[in-house]
């Protein structure tokens, strides 16, 4: 078990090109489950492969358990990796696949058997030990790949989108199993995904990357409640946060045709920032919906375009009645009776609205 540290680590595939991973700084505690998340091409896999020793570290350092890994071969790093397509050895049986890392380390045959059996028990693979991978379902292959990683008892687990080839239901159940198993084994884990639900549910902490650069490294709750910049705010949460860049008025901000009075504490935050425009972020659930009947007086007027009824609640996709017809998403109670074309009035319910600088995108 070990602490993992990225220290200004960079990877530049082609000299002169933009780095695929740009000065990444992460300190991952011993036993922690960290998720790397970000849009496609943001450098998640590259960062993981640098840690695995499958990509060069062109600048900076990566340390495992305090030891610098620059120039250290994969096999000397004491890590185990689960690949997106599982990368099982097609000519070996399930048992041989799982025993392979032990065999390569010269572990005694009897001990190999014992560990493989124990892992197979945990993963429910006991009946399949003599099969070749091609005779397994996708979910079973995924388990074999997990098994091959856990028999090793490595310092660090690395997983690159291990669930992306499973169907939605399997993905949910396997997600929980992986998280539970990691807690039980207590092995430091770095997990790559582009699925924010996986990121939010599995990770102790989540590192969000964009274009190879770290945007924020925090607990899921903090990521949601205090996004460090506009990109994080827009990436985390589904449907995404509503972001408006608005002129600042005397009592609040001007949104569409109406003045939106902001709670006092927020307004003082704006004035102290000294901005005359501001990027305001409001999550769909931070709106209260009023109808035409006057209970939403003082709110922002909008017209409903689409109602997404989810049972317990509903999402209203609407547009403001300003000249740009800015789209806005609102969560309301389920079966509220809202229909396409309805006029609604929206008021922010919470004081925890998000304020960002329009120039830098940073949180204020």
């Amino acid at each position, binding site marked *: 078990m070990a602490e993992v540290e990225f220290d200004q680590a960079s990877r530049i595939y082609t000299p002169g090109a933009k780095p695929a991973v740009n000065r990444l700084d992460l300190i991952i505690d011993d036993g922690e489950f960290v998720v790397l998340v970000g849009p496609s091409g943001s450098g998640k896999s590259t960062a993981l492969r640098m840690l695995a020793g499958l990509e060069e570290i062109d600048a900076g350092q990566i340390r495992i358990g305090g030891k610098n890994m620059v120039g250290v071969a994969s096999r000397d790093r004491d890590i185990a990796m689960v690949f997106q397509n599982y990368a099982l050895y097609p000519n070996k049986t399930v048992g041989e696949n799982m025993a*392979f890392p032990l065999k390569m380390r010269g572990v005694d045959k009897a001990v190999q058997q014992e560990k493989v059996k124990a892992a197979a028990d945990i993963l429910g693979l006991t009946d399949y030990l003599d099969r070749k991978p091609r005779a397994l379902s996708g979910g079973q292959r995924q388990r074999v790949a997990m098994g091959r990683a856990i028999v090793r008892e490595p310092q660090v687990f*690395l997983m690159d989108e291990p669930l992306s080839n499973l169907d939605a239901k399997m993905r949910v159940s396997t997600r929980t199993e992986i998280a539970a198993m990691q807690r039980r084994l207590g092995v430091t884990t770095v997990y790559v995904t582009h699925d924010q639900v996986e990121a939010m549910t599995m990770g102790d902490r989540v590192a969000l990357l964009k274009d190879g650069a770290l945007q924020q490294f925090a607990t899921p709750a903090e990521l949601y409640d205090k996004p460090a910049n506009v990109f994080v705010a827009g990436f985390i949460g589904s449907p995404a946060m509503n972001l408006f860049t608005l002129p600042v008025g005397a009592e609040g901000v001007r949104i569409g045709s109406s003045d939106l009075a902001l709670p006092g504490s927020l307004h003082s935050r704006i004035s102290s920032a000294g901005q005359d425009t501001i990027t305001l972020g409001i999550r769909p659930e931070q709106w209260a919906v009023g109808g035409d009947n006057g209970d939403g007086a003082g709110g922002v007027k909008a017209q409903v375009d689409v109602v997404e009824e989810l049972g317990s609640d509903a999402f209203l996709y609407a547009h403001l009645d300003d000249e740009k017809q800015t789209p806005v998403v609102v969560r309301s109670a389920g079966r509220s009776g809202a229909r396409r074309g309805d006029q609604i009035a929206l008021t922010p319910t919470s004081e925890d609205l998000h304020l960002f600088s329009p120039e830098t995108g940073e949180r204020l």
Partner: protein
Amino acid sequence: MTVTAERPAEVTPRRPDRGPGSRADGWIRRAPLLPALIFTIIITQLPFLFTIYYSLQSWNLVRPGSRQFVGLDNYVKVFTDSQFRQVALNTVLLTAGAVIFSMILGLLFALLLDRAFFGRGFIRTLLITPFLITPVAAALLWKTVLFDPTYGLINFVLSPFGAGQTDWISTFPLTSVMIALVWQWAPFMMLLTLAGLQSQPHDVLEAARVDGAGTFAVFREVTIPHLRRFIELGLVLGAIYLVNTFDAIYMMTQGGPGTASANLPFYIYQRAFLGFDIGQSAAMGVVVVVATIIVSTFALRLIFRSFSGEES
């Protein structure tokens, strides 16, 4: 509300004599191919039947009028002919040696080419060239340019070391022929194994490295099992082709000295067209065909087994 699941109807396999896929239907589909099949049978199987017929006769062209039916006499002679056995052994040695050494060499070249380096395309073309040369020209090249005792490059290169006097072809006839064949066939094996190497999934190789395998262990545990079917295919195809080697022997050694470098096709040719013993050579031909069928049945079974999705 109660829902009663209907019992699924028994699944009955389709009757083979009706509907699409049935026997009659199959013949209708095959009918347009029949002329080609009949033509093939006429030009390949009829000569074979004639050969069997000749093999039962004593018939030497230089003794006209002596032709007569002798039953299995020719076959008895074939099996008691020590030269025939020597030549059969030569055939096995030449074929197996050439196939195995060209595979080893081809695999080494393929491993070298399976990485990026400056001028790879050019080197690859150079390495393939021997395979594109006419076999007769290749044999001549080896005989005159390389192995010749007086003008040959090999002796020229060796002469500073005081070992430039060997007449390679007379001293090591079978080996010389084998070397020329290996030179021609290594590129073929290289192409096959290179295709195999480049079709290896990268992530499996990476997984092996992460799992603690060094370069050699990756090769032994992952690459070789993956290449197995490509190697088997190369060995079988090479053997099928090389067992019939004629041009190299004809050009380089004429099977000599004696029968030291003759293989079966060459020996049968000698008996038929230099010795004019039609009966004897027909019997040898039949024996060779039967032996080939037996061997190639096993060889083809091997290929089909490794390509029928045994691994994937």
